[in-house]
């Protein structure tokens, strides 16, 4: 169709709020804080799967950690009555992501899977997305990284290694999602089955606190998990419409 037709149809299709509902999938993750033990296995798994750089002691001391998934810790009170609350925080893949609108070169956008993706090749490193993200889950490559042997043999060939000057963040292991969709297409199925694809963190969690799936499928485990009465979003008042649902911790101190 000619340009004018395309113009008018884009205008109409993309003006109403919630047009993401018409996309192919809506990948969602629930994190059950009652089950989460704060062990950090998800952090390690993510680092192993996604070739996240090991920044080293000196850079870490400057505050330049690179962990796409982090366990936030909040202490209350003093010893011996100190209490620790923790919460795993990763990219929330917000539907109204503040970070997506600000990238001047469109290096981050919402793809057909409902994921907030980062295109490493296009990123010029203005770092405005990191400022705009209220969850502060975006990490910038301040230096070129190297992996001491034999760690360089552990790198995942499905994921690129980012150079300096590029922003990165959790992608819900988009490489695994792609593979799952490819398998589904090869099998002649139209959709990926429930629990067929799991990001590294979900796969590794020993207490099964993380559940991942497509919330457009109302029978999937993640949809059932989302309907739990304890469900909430972090920083819900900011209206970023995150795709990560947390289940509030109600375990008593018995």
């Amino acid at each position: 169709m000619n340009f004018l037709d395309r113009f008018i149809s884009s205008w109409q299709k993309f003006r109403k709020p919630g047009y993401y509902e018409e996309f192919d999938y809506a990948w969602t993750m629930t994190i059950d804080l009652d089950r989460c033990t704060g062990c950090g296995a998800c952090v390690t798994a993510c680092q192993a799967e996604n070739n996240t750089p090991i920044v080293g002691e000196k850079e870490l001391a400057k505050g330049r950690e690179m962990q796409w998934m982090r366990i936030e810790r909040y202490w209350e009170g003093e010893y011996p009555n100190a209490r620790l609350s923790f919460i795993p925080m990763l990219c929330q893949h917000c539907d109204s992501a503040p970070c997506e609108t600000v990238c001047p070169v469109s290096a981050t956008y919402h793809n057909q899977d409902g994921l907030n993706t980062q295109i490493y090749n296009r990123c010029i490193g203005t770092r405005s997305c990191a400022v705009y993200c209220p969850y502060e889950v975006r990490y910038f490559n301040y230096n070129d990284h190297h992996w001491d042997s034999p760690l360089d043999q552990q790198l995942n060939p499905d994921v690129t290694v980012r150079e300096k000057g590029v922003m990165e963040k959790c992608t819900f292991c988009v490489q695994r999602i792609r593979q799952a969709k490819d398998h589904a297409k090869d099998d002649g199925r139209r959709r990926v089955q429930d629990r067929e694809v799991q990001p590294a963190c979900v796969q590794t969690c020993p207490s099964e606190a993380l559940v991942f799936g497509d919330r457009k499928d109302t029978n999937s485990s993640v949809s059932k998990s989302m309907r739990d009465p304890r469900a909430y979003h972090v920083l819900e008042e900011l209206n970023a419409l995150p795709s990560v649902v947390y289940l509030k911790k109600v375990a008593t101190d018995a």
Partner: protein
Amino acid sequence: MASSAIGLFHDPDSALEAAGELMSAGFARPELQSPIPLHGVEAVLGPKKSVIRRFTLFGGLFGAIGGFTLAAGTAVLYLHPAGGRPIIAIPPFLIISYEMTILCGILATVLGFLISARFPAIRERIYVPEAAVDKFVVTVPCETSEHSDRAEAILRDAGAEEVRHLREDGS
């Protein structure tokens, strides 16, 4: 032979007076050269129209429509949903359109200025260097030597400090 009579004056009032008298004596419209913009020129030599206005207007309109088209058109060429916002988002694109209005308005004004003032000057034109310092100069084209004598008389009457004749061949 065709030449130009050039009169150098000390002050702008005498120069304007001389120009007025030259015009009423039937000469072609004289040209005034001065180091500062003069007031009262239009009263003596007739009104001037400025076409620069039209350039600015059309430049601004072009920029306004062009800016919006650039932003909205390129957004549609490669669909890139971001932040749940519409693909053709009005407030940001209006800002782009505003900036382009001003940019194209500025460029069009410059173009209008260059065209209407006939810049840059490729061929040599009559120029008196003292006009850039402190003298006010009246130049008038004369067809015959009789005309140039009359022009000289008028200029001296009005108080010219110096009168030169510049023939077409440059002497």
